[in-house]
């Protein structure tokens, strides 16, 4: 499986929280070869693999489809677009960034900034409500194309960096989706001690709503949130971050099932897959937070891919981490016991 190509397909499709139709179509197509059934339900894409049987756990593998971005809030008198954020954004990265407004058609835009020649020394990091998008259109032209509620995504294609690093928008959490697809590719045709549901969920960045309703329907015994986590960056703190290239981070937290965590670690060790611990003292900031309290309670775990520049237009991952993450998920599914 060509993971670079897979990541290109996944990041090229847009899906700002709440408007995941484009990425959902791509996800459904990519998931179909590996599942017995695949359907879209309330925006979520759900694939089922294997028959649910008593005595065998039903495992949910989740990655969220949505990406951080903006929603259009208004068109100004002078023809610029005002926005609100969907998900948390690092506003330091916004001046002069290129965006796409998903209006009646896709419209290219750039976030306004003041050139150094005209600055007065009082500039600060603009908050989201202070940002304005320039599309080159007049107010009247824009009103034919854009309305409040349209989503805005970053215009940042996937490019390969050195070694097997890549940079793109929305690698959070398209790389999680890629690692699940890779795991399914690895276990193709194998007899498993469990049945599985794959949940590519909506609205993680805003509310974990897709995961909440998806898990309610699926009723899993075990649920794994496959997401990203902070990788060590320049001037970062190595005690608080994962290292890139050293494999997936297995979550250890009071809110997660210690049994699932231990089984993940045992699976990684059994197949000699490099992994790193990610210790959290409470909630995980992933869909696992809603999985663990679905219905009467579900055994939840997290496996995360280290990622740099999270929630910016230019996120960076190492493809070997996606691969190892997929290998870990496959190793876990091959030997997962009941919880």
């Amino acid at each position, binding site marked *: 499986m060509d993971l670079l190509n897979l990541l290109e397909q996944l990041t090229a499709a847009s899906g700002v929280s709440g408007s995941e139709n484009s990425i959902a179509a791509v996800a459904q197509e990519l998931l179909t070869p590996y599942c017995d059934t695949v359907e879209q339900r309330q925006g979520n894409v759900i694939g089922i693999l294997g028959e649910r049987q008593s005595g065998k756990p039903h495992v949910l593998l989740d990655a969220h489809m949505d990406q951080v971005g903006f929603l259009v809030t208004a068109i100004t008198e002078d023809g610029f677009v005002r926005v609100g954020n969907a998900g948390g954004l690092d506003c330091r990265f916004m*001046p002069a960034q290129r965006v796409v407004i998903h209006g009646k058609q896709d419209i290219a835009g750039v976030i306004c900034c003041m*050139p150094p020649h005209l600055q007065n020394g009082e500039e600060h990091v603009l908050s989201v409500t202070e940002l304005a998008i320039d599309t080159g259109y007049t107010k009247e032209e824009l009103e034919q194309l854009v309305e409040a509620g349209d989503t805005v995504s970053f215009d940042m294609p996937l490019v390969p960096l050195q070694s097997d690093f890549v940079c793109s928008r929305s690698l959070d959490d398209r790389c999680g989706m890629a690692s699940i697809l890779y795991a399914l590719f690895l276990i193709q045709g194998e007899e498993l001690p469990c049945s599985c549901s794959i949940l590519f969920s909506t609205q993680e960045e805003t509310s974990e709503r897709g995961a909440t309703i998806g898990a309610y329907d699926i009723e899993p015994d075990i649920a794994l949130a496959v997401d990203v986590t902070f990788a060590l960056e320049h001037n970062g703190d190595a005690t608080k971050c994962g290292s890139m290239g050293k494999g997936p981070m297995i979550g250890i937290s009071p809110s997660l099932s210690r049994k699932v965590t231990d089984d993940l670690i045992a699976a990684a060790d059994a197949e000699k897959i490099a992994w790193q611990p990610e210790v959290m003292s409470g909630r995980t900031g992933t869909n696992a937070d809603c999985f663990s309290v679905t219905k009467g309670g579900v055994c939840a775990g997290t496996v995360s891919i280290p990622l740099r520049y999270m929630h910016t237009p230019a996120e*960076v991952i190492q493809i070997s981490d996606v691969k190892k993450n997929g290998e870990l998920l496959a190793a876990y599914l091959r030997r997962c016991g009941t919880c």
Partner: protein
Amino acid sequence: MLNHFETLCNLCASSGDESEVRNYILSVLRERKDVTWEIDPLGSLLVQKQGKKRAPHKLMISAHMDEVGMIVTHVNSDSTYCLEAVGGVDASVALGRQVLVGEEHLHGVIGTKPVHLLSADEKKKLPKWDELVLDMGILPEAERRTAAREGTYVYFAPNFTRMGKSRVCSKAIDDRAGCAMLLHLLEQEAPYDFTAAFLVQEEIGLRGAKAAAYTVNPEFALVLEATTAADIAGAEGDAKVCSLGEGPVISFMDRGAIYDKELYRLAFSICEKNKIPCQTKSRIAGGNDSGAIHASRGGVRTLAISLPCRYLHSPSCLADLKDLDACTALLPLLIKSIMEEVSSI
């Protein structure tokens, strides 16, 4: 001309190594019989264009080939690279941008200290260059200096895009717009001889212009540029400085030069007579090669004709092609008037 403009914008040439742009211009000039050229010691390309008639006044028309960019200053032990800006680039517009590195155009991205380690106050502070790094992924120590080393140039990734009905957004519109206008002039028949100077190192202090103006020794100079438009959301009145869609910008003064009054008035009257839109700048800000050229040797009568451009010195400069057309319409008329109507002083 639009083809030249797009191609030129997508090339990578920062101050000190303008060869990509120079080579492209040369590839066009080699097809022509009415031009001769020399490359000066700094790298400026000085082209002698033969017109139908000898010129009564020696005229130099210039544009600068260099764009703002970055340069690697240090290779860090964590496999990142320290950077400084080449020219006036705000760290804010470099952060999180995809870039091309060195002559091989390797891909990279500009990163900084992660947001989750910043205090609430730090999150509001604009990033500074000494906090930014070039990130190309993690490389073994032996390979780090092969990928980039001290002195390697880093460029904003090419991104020329059409926007709206007649607008374009790209890096390096400053001053590939001027290069495209000047190249277009060289491709037309000229009524009079003139010198076209494609200059180096404008962005780090008008250095190519200083040397070239000495060499060419003109009596008159026209500087073709892109200048800061601030007609953005919420801007009103003089704070707009100049506006897209309102034609070439003809300044009376900026931070580098006070322009020749007769030429200034001449340009406006030509525009009025020929129904070409034009405007001036409502703030005295910025500067261009005129600053070096107008004070060269015993003085050169100088005027700058600029394309209004938003978000200058960012990877997303935005300009209107109607303004580029208006500049192109004005230039031959202005040249003719300088030759035929203006007397030497």
